[in-house]
C-alpha cells in the first residue's frame, strides 16, 4: 500500500547479534516518530525500571510517513527515544530529535525505524545498505572508529561504505540496476563523550545536526555502539502524489514569498524565512566562503556554512552559542568558533557545559572551587574565556579527570555530590529549571514552557507559542515598531487554531491567567499538539507552527491547515488537525504511563525553587529583559511586560491538581486505567496494574 510507510522497523540486538524486524502496520495507530517510538519501546523494553546504561535499554530512531518526501520541514526529521542518562533525579524515558538526511535515507533503505537493544562485546557500528544490515567491528583491530570524534568517524564511514571508489557512483547490491547512488551514507554517531558515558553526550549527524538532550550518545557508549550508517536506493511510495505536489505549490505561494521579502518586523526574520536565509545562524547564500546547508527537502537552510574555510560546519542554533558562553562571556570577544567544533567532535550537548561554566566560575570566585579548595580543581579558571581553558574544560569532562569526574554526571548530580544543589538551585546560581535541565525559556513568564517541561521528562524545546507571543511581541517595542497585531486580534487569531477548543482565553499569560482552568487546557493542548504534529508526524519545530505569517492577509498563518494537508497527501488518510491533537493526547498518556512504571511521583512535576523566589542580591537567574506577552486584565486584552514575575507554590500545586483531573489522571498524576483504556492503551493499563501502580 502506498501510504508513506516503508513497512518494517529494524530491530538489532547487539548482545545476540540477531537482526529482525517489526511490522510498521502494528504501530500505525501512532502515526510515526515519537508515538511509534514510545510504543516500540513499551513492547521491547520489558523492565522499565532499568538504568539508562543497562544493556536491556532500547534506543529507537523513528521516521514517519512524511519523512523522505517533499513535505516541507519534515523530510529529514528523526525522533530518538530511550531511557536517558541525562534527566535527574530519575533517568526518564526521554526523547530528542534531529534533522539532516538520516530519517529520509532510512526510508529509502526500506525501514521506518530502528530499535537497538543489548550490548556488544566490543565496539561495533551498524552498517545498513538497503535491506542488508551488518553489525561491524568498530574497534582498533576492525574499522578503527572507536576513539574518533564524530566528524572523523563520519568521514571514515563514508570511505568504508563507498569502498574507496574513484567514481562518483557507488553500486549497492549485485548489479548497477540493483541500486547505485552518488550520495554518502547518512551517519549518526557518538563521540568520545558518549564512549566515556558522559551523561549529556549527544548523537551527532553531519557536523551540526544532532540529538542533544537526553544523553543518547552515552546510551550508544554503554552498548559499545559507535555509529549507525544507512544508505538507501529506494523511494517512498506516496498515496496521492498530485495532492502532495499541489500542497507544495500551495505552501510555496502562501508560506514565504521568495521574490517579495517582507519581514514581519524590519530586519527580523520571519518564522517562514526561506530561500537560503540560513536564518538561525545568519549565513546568507551570498556570504563568501559559506554555503548554508539544510535538512532534506527543506528550503530554510538553518545550518551554518560548510566549506573549506567555514568554522562550525553545519552547526546551528544553541551549538553556535557555545562560542559565546565559553569565550565571549568572559571578556574574549575573539573566542574561536572552533570551541563549538570541539564540542561537536566530542559529541557533547551544548546546553550542559553552557550551564555549568557560569556556575563553576561563581564557585571559583567565591573561593569554594580551585586548587586545594573545598572543591579541588587545577583547571586554569584564571584563564576562563580563553580557547586553552575551553579545551582543558571539555577534555576533563570527556576523560573524567579533575572535576570532570563529577561534571560528566551532569551539573545536578555534581552539585548534589558537592553538597551545593539546594543552595545553588534555590539561589538560581545554578540555573537548572527542571529534571536537571538548564534554564532555556523562562517558566515564570512562559508558563506553558515551564509547566509542560515539568510535567514531562525534559526541557520541551518547542518554539511555537514563544515565537509569536514572546519573541515578536517583545522585539517589536525594542525596535520601536508597533505590534504586528493588537493583543485581542492576536490571541483571537491564534486561539481559533487551538482546536478543538478554539478558545483565545487559553492564551492569557497574566498573573492569574497562567493558573486558570483555561491555561490548564492550553498546557494540555500544547502537550498533545506537539506530541503528534511535531514529534510524531515530525514537522520541524522551526518550520511549523505557522501562526504569524507576514506574507498573508492579516498575518494569519497556515496552521491548522498545513499540518494535515501534507500528512494526508502522503498517507492517503483523512486525518484532521483535531484528530492529530487527539493522537497526541494518547501518546502523551503512553509516555506518562511509562514514567510511572519508572517510579514517577507528583514531586517530579515541580519546577526548581529559584523560579518561585526573587533573589536578593541578584543571582544568575535574576535579570531584566523585556518579556512582553498578552494578558487579559480588567476585562480587556493588552500586551504587558511580565518580567520580574515569580511563581507561587500554592497556585502551582493547585494548577497541577486541576491539570491531573483534566487529563483524567489520578491525584498522584498517574493516568487512570479508565483513561488509558479510553485511548486504547490497554497494555499500559495492564502493566501499571501488574506493578501495583493503578
Amino acid at each position, binding site marked *: 500500500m502506498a501510504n508513506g510507510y516503508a513497512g518494517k522497523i529494524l530491530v538489532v540486538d547487539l548482545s545476540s547479534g540477531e537482526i529482525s524486524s517489526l511490522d510498521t502496520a502494528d504501530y500505525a495507530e501512532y502515526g510515526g516518530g515519537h508515538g511509534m517510538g514510545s510504543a516500540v519501546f513499551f513492547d521491547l523494553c520489558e523492565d522499565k525500571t532499568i538504568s539508562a546504561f543497562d544493556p536491556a535499554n532500547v534506543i529507537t530512531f523513528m521516521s514517519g510517513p512524511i519523512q523522505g518526501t517533499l513535505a516541507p520541514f519534515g523530510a529529514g526529521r528523526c525522533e530518538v527515544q530511550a531511557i536517558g542518562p541525562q534527566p535527574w533525579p530519575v533517568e526518564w524515558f526521554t526523547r530528542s530529535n534531529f534533522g539532516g538526511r538520516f530519517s529520509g535515507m532510512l526510508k529509502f533503505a526500506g525501514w521506518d525505524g530502528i530499535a537497538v537493544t543489548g550490548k556488544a562485546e566490543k565496539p561495533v557500528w551498524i552498517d545498513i545498505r538497503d535491506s542488508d544490515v551488518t553489525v561491524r567491528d568498530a574497534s582498533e583491530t576492525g574499522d578503527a572508529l572507536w576513539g574518533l570524534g564524530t566528524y572523523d568517524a563520519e568521514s571514515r564511514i563514508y570511505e568504508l561504505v563507498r569502498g574507496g571508489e574513484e567514481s562518483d557512483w557507488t553500486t549497492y547490491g549485485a548489479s548497477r540496476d540493483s541500486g547505485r547512488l552518488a550520495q554518502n551514507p547518512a551517519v549518526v554517531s557518538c563521540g568520545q563523550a558518549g564512549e566515556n558515558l558522559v551523561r549529556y553526550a549527544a548523537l551527532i549527524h553531519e557536523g551540526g545536526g544532532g540529538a542533544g538532550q537526553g544523553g543518547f550518545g552515552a546510551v550508544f557508549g554503554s552498548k559499545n555502539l559507535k555509529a549507525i550508517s544507512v544508505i538507501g536506493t529506494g523511494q517512498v511510495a506516496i498515496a496521492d502524489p498530485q495532492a502532495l505536489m499541489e500542497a507544495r505549490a500551495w505552501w510555496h505561494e502562501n508560506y514565504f514569498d521568495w521574490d517579495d521579502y517582507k519581514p514581519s518586523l524590519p530586519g527580523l526574520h520571519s518564522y517562514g524565512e526561506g530561500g537560503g536565509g540560513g536564518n538561525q545562524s545568519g549565513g*546568507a547564500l551570498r556570504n563568501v566562503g559559506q554555503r548554508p546547508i539544510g535538512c532534506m527537502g527543506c528550503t530554510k537552510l538553518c545550518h551554518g556554512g560548510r566549506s573549506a574555510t567555514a568554522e562550525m560546519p553545519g552547526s546551528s542554533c544553541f551549538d553556535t552559542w557555545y562560542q559565546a558562553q565559553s569565550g565571549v562571556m568572559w571578556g574574549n570577544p575573539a573566542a574561536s568558533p572552533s570551541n563549538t567544533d570541539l564540542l561537536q567532535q566530542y559529541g557533547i550537548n551544548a546546553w550542559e557545559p553552557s550551564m555549568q561554566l557560569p556556575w563553576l566560575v561563581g564557585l571559583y570566585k567565591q573561593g569554594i572551587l580551585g586548587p586545594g579548595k573545598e572543591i579541588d580543581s587545577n583547571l586554569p579558571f584564571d584563564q576562563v574565556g580563553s580557547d586553552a581553558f575551553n579545551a582543558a574544560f571539555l577534555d576533563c569532562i570527556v576523560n573524567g579527570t579533575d572535576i570532570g569526574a563529577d561534571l560528566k554526571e551532569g551539573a545536578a548530580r555534581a552539585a548534589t555530590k558537592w553538597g551545593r544543589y539546594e543552595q545553588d538551585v534555590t539561589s538560581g546560581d545554578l540555573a537548572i529549571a527542571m529534571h536537571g535541565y538548564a534554564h532555556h525559556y523562562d517558566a515564570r513568564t512562559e508558563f506553558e514552557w515551564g509547566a509542560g517541561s515539568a510535567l514531562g521528562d525534559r526541557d520541551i524545546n518547542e518554539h511555537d507559542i514563544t515565537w509569536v507571543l514572546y519573541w515578536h511581541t517583545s522585539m517589536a517595542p525594542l525596535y520601536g515598531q508597533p505590534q504586528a497585531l493588537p493583543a485581542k486580534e492576536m490571541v483571537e487569531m491564534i486561539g481559533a487554531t487551538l482546536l478543538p477548543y478554539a478558545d483565545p482565553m487559553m492564551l492569557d499569560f497574566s498573573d492569574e491567567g497562567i493558573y486558570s482552568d483555561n491555561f490548564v487546557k492550553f498546557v494540555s493542548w500544547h502537550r498533545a499538539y506537539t506530541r503528534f504534529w511535531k514529534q510524531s508526524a515530525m514537522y520541524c519545530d522551526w518550520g511549523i507552527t505557522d501562526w504569524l505569517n507576514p506574507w498573508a492577509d492579516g498575518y494569519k498563518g497556515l496552521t491548522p491547515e498545513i499540518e494535515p494537508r501534507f500528512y494526508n497527501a502522503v498517507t492517503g488518510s483523512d486525518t484532521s488537525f483535531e484528530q492529530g491533537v487527539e493522537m497526541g493526547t494518547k501518546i502523551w498518556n503512553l509516555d506518562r504511563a511509562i514514567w510511572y512504571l519508572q517510579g514517577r511521583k507528583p514531586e517530579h512535576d515541580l519546577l526548581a525553587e529559584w523560579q518561585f523566589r526573587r533573589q536578593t542580591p541578584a543571582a544568575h537567574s535574576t535579570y531584566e529583559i523585556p518579556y512582553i506577552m498578552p494578558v487579559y486584565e480588567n476585562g480587556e486584552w493588552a500586551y504587558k511586560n511580565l518580567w520580574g514575575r515569580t511563581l507561587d507554590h500554592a497556585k502551582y500545586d493547585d494548577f497541577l491538581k486541576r491539570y491531573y483531573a483534566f487529563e483524567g489522571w489520578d491525584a498522584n498524576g498517574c493516568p487512570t486505567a479508565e483513561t488509558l483504556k479510553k485511548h486504547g492503551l490497554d497494555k499500559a493499563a495492564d502493566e501499571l496494574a501488574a506493578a501495583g501502580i493503578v
Partner: protein
Amino acid sequence: MAMEFVTVDAKLAIPGVEAARAFLQECGFDDRLVGVLMKASGMLPMDLYSLEHVLSFFAYDNSDAIGDEAAVFQERRLGVSYLAPGRLARWISEVVGDRELAEAIEVEAARIEDPHVYPPRMRIMRELVSARVLQCYEVLGIDMEAETASATSR
C-alpha cells in the same frame, strides 16, 4: 520606522592611574552584573564581572544593524545583548566606582525619546564603556591588540 540613531555627546575625563586600575578590576561574585543574550531560540543569562566583560557582551549584539537588512542576515550572531541602561549605570556607579561613566550613560540614554527602544541605547552604552576601557588601557600602557590576542590564546 521609529528607530533613532544618536551620537554620543558625552566626553569622559581621562582617569588617573589608580582610577584606571580600579575601573578595570573584576568584581566579586556577589557584585556581578547579569546581562542576557536574547535570541529567538532562547536566552542566555551571562555573568559579567568587569567593564571588559560588559564590552565583550555588547560585542555579541547586532541589534543596531536594524534598518540594514543585508547586514542582519549576513551576520552570524543575530541577537540582542540586553542590559537595561539604568541597571548598568547603577552597577558602574556602585560596584565599578565610576560615577562619571554611570552618569554619562544615564544622561545619554535618557535622550532617546521612546522609552522602550533598545538598539540606540545599546550603542550609547557600548560606546561609552568602550571609550572608558580604552582610556584605561592608554593610561595604564596596555596594548589593546596584544590584550585581545592574549585573551584568545592564553
